[in-house]
């Protein structure tokens, strides 16, 4: 038994090593292929095998194309491209204009979103319509399209103004601010020492439940007031959970004393409205006032 397990372990180690080495090789290969004078040398130096040289040139070209594209995308962050709709019945012969929005946070490109336009209007060829997109529904794509894209219907009236640049700029702003809010929420959890990796698992081991019952307030039993875990002896309040909706526009913070605070967040990450209630339902204004400000320092301000 043990030998078999050992062998399995060894095999797994080897697999891991192979993958790291492969990744390393790929990395080195792309560095080598990106050498500035490589294509010229390949052209000029004599080689024994002509086919190998052509292959090499092809690889170099592929790499330099990729480098160019990546640099363009990384610097512009909103880029456009053309694709072809494979549907033979697509409008406008399947010509599709794609807009790609990169979202970068803390030195990493975390996500790429696409909006694909077609031109359904045969009379006004310049009018773009959103054909497909990968924007999550918590981003107001439709209102933005309504504002910045032309809404001329098939009737022959003159199309309203269309500004794709502004549309892209606003959409990018919405996406980036959403990701920044998500990031801020993660940081808040870390600040409040709510390790979202381990804590829920431990809790789910302790009491298996499919979810949080939201309308348990329907019963007003007296017992529920007393039953929860006793307050910390030194009177120190701890934050037990930080939750937010999908768009991170509303953050709910629960304390160990049963105090609950709901904070409204604007899109650029400002807490502009706050309600904090104690367990008995009384409103604690001072904490609520303290919460107003940037979302980044919320936990800090609350624990003062």
């Amino acid at each position, binding site marked *: 038994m043990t030998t078999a397990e050992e062998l399995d372990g060894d095999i797994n180690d080897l697999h891991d090593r192979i993958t790291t080495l492969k990744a390393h090789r*790929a*990395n080195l*290969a*792309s560095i080598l292929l990106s050498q500035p004078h490589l294509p010229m040398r390949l052209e000029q130096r004599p080689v024994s095998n002509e086919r190998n040289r052509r292959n090499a040139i092809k690889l170099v070209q*592929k*790499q330099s194309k*990729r480098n160019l594209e*990546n640099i363009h*995308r*990384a610097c512009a962050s909103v880029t456009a491209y053309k694709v072809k*709709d*494979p*549907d*033979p*019945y*697509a*409008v406008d012969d399947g010509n599709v204009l794609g807009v*790609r929005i990169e979202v970068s946070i803390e030195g990493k*490109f975390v996500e*790429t*979103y*696409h909006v*694909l336009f077609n031109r359904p209007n045969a009379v006004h060829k310049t009018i773009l319509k959103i054909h*497909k*997109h*990968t*924007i*999550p*529904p*918590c981003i*107001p794509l439709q*209102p*933005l399209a309504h*504002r910045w894209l032309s809404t001329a219907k098939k009737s022959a009236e003159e199309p309203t103004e269309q500004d794709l640049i502004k549309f892209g700029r606003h959409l990018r702003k919405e996406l980036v601010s959403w990701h920044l809010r998500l990031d801020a929420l993660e940081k808040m959890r870390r600040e409040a020492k709510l390790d979202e990796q381990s804590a*829920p698992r431990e809790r*789910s081991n302790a*009491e*298996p*439940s*499919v*979810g*949080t*019952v*939201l309308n*348990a307030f*329907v*019963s007003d*039993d007296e*017992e*529920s007031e007393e*039953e*929860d875990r006793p307050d910390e002896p030194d009177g120190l309040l701890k934050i037990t959970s930080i939750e937010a909706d*999908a*768009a991170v*526009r*509303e953050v709910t913070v629960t304390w160990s004393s049963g105090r609950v605070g709901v904070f*409204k967040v*604007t*899109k650029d990450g400002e807490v*502009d409205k706050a309600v904090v209630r104690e367990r008995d339902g009384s409103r604690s204004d001072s904490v609520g006032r303290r919460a107003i400000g940037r979302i980044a320092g919320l936990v800090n301000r609350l624990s003062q």
Partner: protein
Amino acid sequence: MAPKPKTTVPDYKNIPHSHRLPTTHREVQRTFSKLSRQSLLSLALQWLAKKNRDFCHPYLLGDRDADEEEEDELYTPAQSYEELQEIYKELAARKGGKREVQDRILEGDWRTGVSMFQLATAEIQYLLDHPSSLRWTAKRLARIPNPKSASLDMEVTNDSEHLPRFQAQTFMANLARELTPLMKAHYLLIRIKTMPMTVLRVYIHDSPYSTETSLAVDSANPDSARSVFFIWPNGSPFVYSSIANHFGQVISDDGRHLRDIVQQAIPKAFSRPSARYQLASTNFTTKSLDALLAYRGPGKSNAASGGWSIFQDHSFSQNALDFITSQRGDGHGKHGSTKDTTGSAVKAGPGRPKRTLDEKETSETKRRREVAAGRFGSSAQPNDGQGLERVEVRIDDPFPSVLNATEQADGDTSNISEQSANRNRRGRPSLLDRSLDEIEELEGGDAWVPDVRVVFQGSHVFAGVRQLVEQGVFNGEKMPGWMTGEAGVTIGAVKEGRIRTKSVQIPGV
């Protein structure tokens, strides 16, 4: 338990969580016999947790009357909650039959009755264990445009909201206010941990009373479904609704009617002054919750299904800092080879065809597979769990060859009468029946447009279409786009090869 009032008067209250049904009640028996041992155990522990004890009072030793006999009990009542928790933890640790747990719950610890809370959590547990046990219809909460401030509704500012705000307490209060004059109901609203959604279960009690005794009486119609489920995926304007019918149970008109009442109340409960909502159909019905979350969910995949799925996973564009070109080729090769092996395995399985024929066809099959990959992208894999089991379309294109104008007219009218007869027979009009406007529009034109409907049915319709393309039954290059599932509807009308967008689309955000 509070002493039962002697007289029952009609009232305007909801049914509270703690009201109990007798364990012999049909709903209780049905629900509990469906659950697995593991689910029953986890439910029992959940009910014994401190925060739920008020709603799930078990039969403890202290509840026993002094004059009661002890001998005829199968299960001795436990001393305390902690002891019960230990018992169920022990049961969870060892193996055994499911019956053991079910009997212990129904005849032992909760012999005095199962509370509404318990029944509701049990049904929701079953729903999560079997995510394709019910048929769901996806709707969208659409803002009713305000004529005075139409432009204001669409404005995007720093603190504008374009989705209806979901506040559990306000929503429940509003919903109860809408519904209590019409019926009594028990509500349970749960935010699910494992899936990004909130579930509302409404147990409809068609009676003017909200007492325990009135609950225990089985309704006159034994087959009517009593509970209705609604699901809100987090951060999206959609609502899925379903009637919880047990296997093989027919959904009666009564059940449907009650669901409609609840459904009508939902947008009202969401509305607030200067933001009124209505439910709009999204032409999407399926049994699979995963498919619902993919097509009408909170993520990136709603408007990029079918072949466009390459835009939502990162196969179309790499990370902007990913400069490695060689590995990507490797990955593709691997992907292709795994696909090849599965393909050959499928082929070698059934009929053991001649090797030589296969060898000859490889270039052709490879081409077909590439075409399928181009049309379907990474979607429509047979085991992705996002199968739609029924897709129905009406073809609205005129009949190809035009022969005689008079004959066409005759054909058209006969067709309509036939259709209406059909409708009478089936009782319920199909969503695909032409509306009066559409019939008028057709009569205005001179081409004959027969009412042709195509229904695809199966465990995963679009994976099936993809396989047919790969095997050369469908021509992958000439196939219209709606057959790849990129339209994202399960019911619709097709004209000129495209799913028609409704002419009267409900505006809103």
